[in-house]
């Protein structure tokens, strides 16, 4: 399992940057929104937490289809499935590698990009915490979706369609916690719920992912 994670990370760095590009997409979405919405400071500040969360969600989403599709196409996945590595480990390793290449950089960059949207002061810490808590859920849920669509040629958009409704609770609690912070309310409740979702997804979803992988490989 460690070997698989290490390989995926190395490939992400080599193959033109799974690292940099998720981040770049995040940056660009955040930059585009003011072009679309207009430059008024209050409006932007008002929508900043939501936009930052939606943008990280989209950035995470965009890199999902790399998770299994490449390995499927070049045959590695079938070889891995006959290797002494249970499908659950593959699922977990893939989710972890996705998080390290996407979730983590997004989390670290988000406060910086908050500036661009005039995110109010108290929200920076919360943004960091919610993303740190929430992005692992995004990665595991996304890995499940990627496993569902792995046999399909360019399942990319189908993948989005399947995964986005699954992302809704995470998004709501994440963005709500930051908004409460901005409004000076206590963010504890949504934070707890966010943590619960992440814990449950990380603990349970890899089994569903493994089942689906086995079905798709046969």
């Amino acid at each position, binding site marked *: 399992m460690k070997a698989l994670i290490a*390989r995926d990370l190395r490939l992400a760095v080599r193959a033109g940057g799974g690292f940099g590009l998720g981040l770049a997409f995040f940056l660009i979405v955040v930059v585009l929104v003011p072009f679309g919405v207009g430059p008024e400071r209050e409006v932007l500040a008002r929508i900043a937490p939501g936009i930052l969360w939606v943008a990280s969600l989209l950035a995470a989403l965009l890199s999902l289809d790399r998770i299994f599709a490449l390995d499927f*196409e070049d045959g590695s996945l079938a*070889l891995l499935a*006959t290797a*002494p590595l249970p499908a659950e480990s593959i699922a977990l390793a893939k989710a972890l590698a996705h998080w390290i290449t996407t979730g983590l950089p997004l989390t670290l960059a988000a406060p910086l990009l908050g500036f661009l949207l005039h995110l109010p002061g108290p929200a920076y810490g919360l943004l960091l915490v919610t993303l740190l808590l929430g992005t692992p859920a995004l990665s595991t849920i996304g890995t499940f979706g990627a496993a569902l669509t792995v046999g399909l040629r360019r399942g990319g958009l189908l993948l989005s369609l399947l995964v986005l409704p699954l992302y809704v609770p995470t998004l709501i609690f994440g963005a709500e916690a930051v908004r409460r912070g901005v409004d000076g309310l206590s963010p504890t409740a949504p934070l707890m719920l966010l943590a619960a979702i992440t814990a449950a997804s990380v603990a349970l979803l890899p089994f569903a992912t493994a089942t689906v992988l086995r079905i798709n*490989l*046969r």
Partner: protein
Amino acid sequence: MLQVKGLACARGGVPVLENLSFDVAAGQALVLRGPNGVGKTTLLRTLAGLQPALVGDVTFAEGTGAYASHADGIKTALKVTENLSFWASVYDRAVPDDVYAAFDLSDLRDRMAGTLSAGQKRRLGLARLGVIGRDVLFLDEPTVSLDGFSVKMFADWMRDVHLARGGCAVIATHIDLGLDAPELELSPFVAASDARGGTDEAFL
């Protein structure tokens, strides 16, 4: 070492082969023959456990099988050495030094796998078999794209290394490998047109 009894298998929901029974002993290879589309790939995938058999049993010691498909599973963005050591560590082993010589990869060790020619890539794919140390190999047209010299090199490795140390192999191929191995022609085992077991059978 490998026993197959009364096996039937399907592809795309349609029964393809049936009534297959054979044994492969340690140190022995079995060559699968048959025209295109007869079901060699399907059979090998079933043996390797990638797809369920319709009926019948496939028996070999757990954790001794390995499969090599039409596709090589090579990462083009990794070096030759990195590709091999990845598979080695998945199987919890080290890369033996002589594997580079055995598959004529010594000069290519530090090349990105993406810059290899078709045959060089295939050699790398085969070298994986020398790394993972499995006993029961299921190989689907292993010598595609290889020149005569490389085919012989592969046959030598199969005979002198793998079979000699007590492994066995089931190999689908259209060419003559130069191995002294029994052949199994699959045409007689093509599933009858009314064979049972297709996905949609319940609907007939």
